[in-house]
């Protein structure tokens, strides 16, 4: 695959994100698909963090473990990341008089890695520039090394700092000039060749999963957000809060996650689309509210942004460890829907879907995301803002229809699909009780046996109805060089099965493998809808395939467990990762290559 990678490392607070973001923007405009990945620790300043950009003229969705260019803001990067640089790669650093250990030096020479020292302090002193401008200087050097146009960088800097006035802009431009001058002096170093650009990418958005999700929920008509800060759900809260003056949405930072869950439940009962997002620990606290909404048949949407647990675990790293939590948490038996986003496109598309499902079935919908998706930077086709349909299910708002309602219509038992009419407090109609105790059709407490069973059955019939309408998982197959998402009956050698952020790495790997061996019959089955779980397509494919491999970012293979529970098929081969890191491109490539070898 035609790709290169660039990694900025340093302490948190040194500006690695701004350098990463400005390079990403510039390269996207230059005609590259960019995939950004951040690693950082749970602290505000210090530590060791990184911002990696993987770049290609064709679509990429992953991070490589090995990098072409390493940019170090301090000596920790030279110690910790130098070994990641590929043969013939480049290290740009700012640490004066740095000496690698003899073994590292030998390895660097052997790998023909160029080490370039940028005397940032000296250059800035000459320019009488503030230390903060070091970020622009180093970006400029990188820009020059990549053989990119100076004017493009100037445009980006103008966009970012133009509002600060001409003087600030002039200082920034002086640093850009100095960067290019410095680069010109290093005549021995060749430009790093970027693959040929594809101008189509320049029209794309550069967006994180959280931002895409924020736009998605605004698009879905969500008017109220209540949440409690918790990584990796916080970027969504921040994004929504920053936009509140434009959207008019009410954003409430609640006193805890229970409050957030209860507030959005109250708002949804009043007919206002509302949402809360949290991570595992906060979601645990929301469990009881989830159960409450089960018996109230109150539509709600919860975003569960996963990170590794148990407890505080690894707060700023990624995982797919809460699938079974989402499916099973909360006491009692009731219908819920669990779905998972996989990338920025899903983040946008699935928000209207989640709200529609919640209102149509009068259930809670849990949308799973991961730190990897929430904070990854995607090159995204502009969103289609006309595609989403608004569906509010059996919500009655017509005044004439409202007048005809009786209290006992609210939890009426007669509907085959278990879904009874719903109307909003404040509507001129008969009133009912949204009752947390077992109740009769009007919400009056009723503890008799036959009524209890009838209401249980009603609430659980919704699960059957929901299961029938949910789509089967998507089969991704390459056909004559292009991705196809339809199933065909062709016999496969290898079927990969996964959900969530796994999709990106698997698709990148399959593209490479199939490009190398067009005879390879491999496909990826991606589960977006995880509960109720549709297993028909999976069972059919599994029966015919030579080998099925489960790929998940957790220790037990939780989707595999659900599949076994629902259709009795145990997937024996598993690729499981649970070290807080996502699947990296080359790592997964090797693992899957080995699995293919075993099938032959």
């Amino acid at each position, binding site marked *: 695959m035609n790709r290169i990678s660039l990694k900025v490392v340093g302490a948190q607070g040194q500006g690695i994100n701004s350098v990463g973001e400005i390079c990403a923007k510039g390269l996207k405009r230059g005609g590259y698909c960019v995939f950004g990945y951040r690693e950082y620790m749970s602290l505000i300043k210090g530590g060791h963090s990184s911002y990696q950009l993987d770049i290609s003229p064709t679509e990429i969705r992953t991070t490589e473990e090995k990098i072409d260019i390493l940019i170090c803001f301090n000596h920790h990067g030279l110690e910790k990341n130098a070994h990641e640089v590929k043969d013939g790669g480049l290290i740009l650093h700012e640490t004066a008089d740095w000496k690698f250990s003899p073994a590292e030096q030998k390895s660097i020479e052997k790998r023909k890695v160029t080490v370039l020292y940028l005397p940032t302090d000296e250059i800035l002193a000459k320019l009488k520039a503030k230390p903060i401008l070091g970020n622009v200087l180093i970006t400029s050097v990188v820009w020059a090394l990549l053989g990119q146009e100076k004017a493009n960088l100037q445009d980006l800097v103008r966009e970012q700092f133009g509002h600060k006035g001409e003087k600030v802009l002039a200082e920034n431009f002086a640093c850009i000039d100095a960067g290019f001058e410095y680069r010109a002096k290093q005549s021995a170093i060749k430009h790093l060749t970027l693959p040929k650009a594809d101008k189509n990418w320049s029209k794309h958005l550069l967006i994180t999963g959280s931002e895409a999700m924020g736009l998605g929920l605004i698009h879905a008509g969500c008017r*109220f957000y209540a949440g409690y800060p918790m990584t990796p759900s916080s970027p969504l809260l921040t994004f929504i809060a920053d936009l509140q003056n*434009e959207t008019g949405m009410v954003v409430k930072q609640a006193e805890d996650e229970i409050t957030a869950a209860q507030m959005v439940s109250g*708002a949804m009962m009043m007919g206002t689309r509302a949402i809360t997002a949290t991570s595992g620990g906060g979601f645990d606290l929301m469990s009881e509210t989830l159960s409450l909404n089960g018996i109230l048949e109150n539509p709600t949407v919860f975003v569960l942004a996963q990170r590794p647990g148990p407890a505080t675990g690894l707060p700023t790293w990624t995982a797919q460890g809460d699938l079974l939590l989402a499916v099973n948490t909360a006491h009692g038996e009731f219908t819920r829907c669990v779905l998972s986003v996989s990338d920025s496109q899903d983040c946008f598309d699935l928000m209207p879907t989640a709200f529609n499902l919640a209102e149509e079935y009068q259930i809670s919908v849990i949308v799973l995301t991961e730190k990897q998706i929430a904070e990854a930077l995607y090159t995204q086709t502009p969103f289609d803002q006309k595609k989403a349909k608004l569906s509010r299910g059996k919500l009655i708002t017509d005044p004439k229809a409202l007048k005809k309602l009786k209290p006992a219509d609210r939890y009426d038992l007669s509907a085959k699909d278990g879904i009874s009419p719903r109307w909003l*407090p404040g509507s001129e109609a008969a009133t009912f009780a949204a009752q*947390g105790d077992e109740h009769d059709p009007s919400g009056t407490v009723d503890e008799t046996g036959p009524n209890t069973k009838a209401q249980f059955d009603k609430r659980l019939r919704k699960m059957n109805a929901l299961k029938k309408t949910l789509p089967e998982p998507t089969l991704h197959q390459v056909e004559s060089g292009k991705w196809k998402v339809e199933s065909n009956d062709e016999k496969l050698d290898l079927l990969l099965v996964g959900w969530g952020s796994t999709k990106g790495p698997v698709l990148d790997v399959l593209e490479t493998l199939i490009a190398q061996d067009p005879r390879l019959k491999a496909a990826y089955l991606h589960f977006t809808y995880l509960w109720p779980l549709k297993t028909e397509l999976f069972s059919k494919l599994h029966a015919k395939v030579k080998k099925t491999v489960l790929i998940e970012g957790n220790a037990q293979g939780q989707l595999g467990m659900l599949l076994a529970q629902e259709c009795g098929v145990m997937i024996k081969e598993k690729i499981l990762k649970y070290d807080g890191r996502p699947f990296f491109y080359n790592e997964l490539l090797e693992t899957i290559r080995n699995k293919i070898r075993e099938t032959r």
Partner: protein
Amino acid sequence: MSIPLSPTGPSMKDYSCDTQCTWCDGCGDYGIWTALKRSLVESGLQPWQVLLCYDVGCHGNMSDKLQGYRFHGLHGRVLPFAAGAALANPNVPVIAVGGDGASFSEGVGHLVHAIRSNYPMVFILHNNANYGLTLGQASALTWQGQPMNTSPNGIPEHTLPSMDFVFSLEPTFVARGFSGNIAQLTKIFQAAMKHRGFAFVDVLQACPTYNKFATHDYLLERCYDANAEGHDPTDFKKARVLATDTGKRISTGIQDCGCVVLHEGFRLNRRFLWFIAILTISHI
């Protein structure tokens, strides 16, 4: 009483349910129930125009004994649900009801932040100083040393000074009533409904089965109407003194409608009024 108070307003019957009452003989809930019904009728609100939110406890059994759109939720959690509803549709008055057990233990954090956030809603505290529905355990407001179910030797903990605590949070409306004085309680509820911020109403009530210390007679003897004795409801400092000094007599009435604090409350509420319940698909 099926005659409405006004030609267009509701009657008491409109708020009646067929469900049988299950409270004990002499329970203070009957008085609060009646006063709440009367205040809704006298406010001219039809059942479909209000949302009544109940916590879990003996009072929560009112959820099917009074008409209106109702919500009966989780123990201790009624405030955030009601606040979410109140913010989502400011045109529907929201009245939340909870007991002293839930409100000063499991849900005390919500009470703190509801007062602080000054949500546009009413909160009626059924204060019988114990957990009645779970058969008479001590609450944070049970008198220290009082033998209760699960604490036969009396509870060792200090009694939480609930009114001092509430006043420390700079509430914009505080009132206290007594379940035995339905006429006064009705007026208090109506005033609370008119308040545009968070209205905290403490209702002292008898629990004939489990509360053997602050009985109906005990409360009847001590409660007096502070407003009738000339208390100025805008005097925040005086209100706090009156509310907390319950040694000899217990003040009731509307103790503080706030002056300076209320101002702050209006600002916040106006911000929340941006909120609309009508849903459209919006594009940005």
